[in-house]
């Protein structure tokens, strides 16, 4: 029995697949660089009180590729156009990894688009210490493996992307990696202008959530984000013994934090 539905809609001059589930005040969910990882515990928990709207990034899954988008900032502009056309604004937003970067870019375009913003280990700012892992020169499997700190302590790790090794999933990963390579190859998964533009964001309460042992985007970037967003209200939560996926590695705590923040 599906808790969610997927439909392809014509919007902003293209076709966009949107996964929708739950009831209540909507939350826009911007997925990570490998795509939408499937309907996990945290989706189900938030869906009890919220309608989750999960657009599938253009060129992934059933969403059409938009060839003229050339970088993540372009994609943020296109999302702004598409969601304005869908009349979703103002909306609460939660973005994961590259999706967090996209959310941050959208906030710099117009902070009023969002009510509240949760960024989970977002890419987009060059970390002051350490480097964003070059996920483009490792396989998807290796990147997945690095994304969780303690596999044994993370039961949902095995459920990510359905957990099965199918040709279809291989192709889906390669589509996602290809598109994000196209958009974020250089500079490597960040935008040097982003921290400057984030200074201009006001009136957008933001919660930054990170795992201290994040191997994909070093936790030092949390402080860089906090600094950049200094003209708006920012809260930072860092989980110990946690990697790049607090939503499954510290699932209960994560759900509680997000539920309270969006209450």
């Amino acid at each position: 029995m599906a808790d969610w539905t997927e439909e392809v809609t014509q919007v902003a001059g293209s076709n966009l697949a949107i996964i929708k589930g739950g009831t209540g005040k909507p939350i826009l969910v911007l997925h990570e660089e490998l795509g939408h990882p499937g309907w996990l515990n945290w989706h189900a928990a938030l869906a009890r009180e919220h309608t989750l709207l999960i657009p599938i990034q253009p060129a992934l899954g059933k969403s059409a590729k938009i060839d003229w988008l050339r970088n993540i900032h372009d994609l943020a502009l296109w999302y702004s156009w598409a969601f304005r056309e869908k009349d979703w604004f103002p909306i609460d937003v939660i973005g994961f990894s590259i999706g967090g970067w996209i959310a941050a870019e959208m906030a710099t375009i117009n902070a009023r688009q969002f009510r509240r913003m949760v960024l989970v280990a977002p890419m987009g700012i060059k970390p002051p210490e350490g480097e964003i892992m070059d996920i483009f020169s490792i396989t998807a499997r290796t990147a997945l493996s690095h994304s969780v700190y303690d596999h044994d302590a993370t039961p949902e790790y095995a459920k990510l992307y359905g957990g099965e090794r199918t040709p279809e999933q291989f192709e889906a990963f390669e589509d996602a990696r290809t598109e994000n390579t196209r958009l974020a190859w250089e500079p490597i998964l960040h935008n040097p202008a982003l921290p400057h533009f984030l200074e201009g964001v006001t009136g957008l309460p933001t919660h930054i959530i990170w795992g201290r042992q994040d191997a994909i985007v070093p936790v030092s970037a949390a402080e860089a984000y906090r600094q950049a967003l200094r003209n708006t209200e920012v809260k930072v939560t860092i989980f110990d013994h946690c990697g790049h996926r607090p939503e499954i590695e510290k699932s209960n705590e994560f759900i509680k934090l997000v539920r309270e923040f969006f209450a």
Partner: protein
Amino acid sequence: MNLMYFTERPYRYVPEDELIKNRAYFGLPNTFFDREKGSQLYNEYLDEMVYAEEVGFDAIMLNEHHGTPFCMGAVMNVEAAILARITKKARIILLGNPLPTFKNPLRVAEELATIDCISHGRLVPGWVRGAGSEQIFNNANPAYNREMFNEAHDLILAAWTRPGPFRWEGKHFHYRFINPWVRPYQKPHPPIMIPGVLSPETVVWCAERRYPYLGLGTALPATAELWNLYGEVAAKQGYEAGSENFGYLQHVVVAETEAKAEELGKAHLFGGGQGAFSRPEHTLPPGYNSKEATKRLARTMTAGSGGFLGVSSEQLGRAQGAGEPENLQRVADSTRRRMARGEVTIEEAKQAIYRAYPKAVAGLQIIAGTPKSVIPKLRTILEVLRPGTLGFFQSQGPVSFEDRMTSIRLLGQEVLPAVREIAKELGLVDPFERQPGQRPYTPGTARTQLVSLEALRA
């Protein structure tokens, strides 16, 4: 018949154990580079090429790879420029410049035109997409690989042939003032040749442009299949393809005795040989493959032979059109994976690598022997593929300069004359004797047979 001498210009002093530990040539730390040895090798390789011209090769073929002891030709155009001056008559065939890795293709147009002028029109440029690892090394966005290849190609031809100054506003390259002072010596531009490992997209692209296509040691049946594809596209374009449209690169090493030749032949497998060129994650950066090739790769993937996303080289070869010498790939790949899991020692890994040698010889992936024993094998290659151009790929691995020069001498003295006779007998002409794409094809008539799989079976 166009006979080319080719060497990867390997850095021959790298410890094999380190290659095996790294599970590939690409990515070996450059702390293993010794400047004295590097200096010596570059000069020896230039000497080899001059000698190759002296003993009768028609052409010197160069190639380009980055960040690897497999091939020191990272800046191929510099070597080509030197050859332009120190050789006299041999064509300088570049197979090729990895176009998508150059941020400034106008500079490539200038460099090649300079080489063509210095050599008095002996340059044959060739262009490649570059291996996956070249995209990583040069920070070239692999998702734009084919687009950038196509646009850089068009731009270079325009820079050579369109009167300047003019403006270029493409998708990836933008120039406000294209007016290179030095234009190629050959008119309208140097003849172009394209090498590949059997990507059907590239084969079709070549046929549409009447560029000769050269298979880089690719498996014979798959090569034959794609040459037929070339022929079909040629017919649609209204011309008849022939030997002038095709070239083939073959590992060949010759020695005074069979025992010595076997020793040199085995050096092709040093460190895992071509199968250990780069690890899968570097071979296949995201977007490097076309969507179709990714689909083929996904289909060939099966549980237990490559795992979730650990693409095996064997699978990759199949997905790319069964282009790679499968035996070498399979052995190198399974050894790499088992090494990664700590299941084999370095010594065991080496044994596994060299166990592949007899099969590689039987499958003609490596031809090593005395002149007497290699000539019939080369005849088979010529009968099966009927190429107008044949490249002789010198030994890899820790082979001495003396042994390499002996191989060149014996090739020149005994093998090249015999190959020329065979080519004459088979009616093989090269692209300089007969310009590719000049023989019209009448729709509905029988096409010339391009390959002979019967010869392979025989």
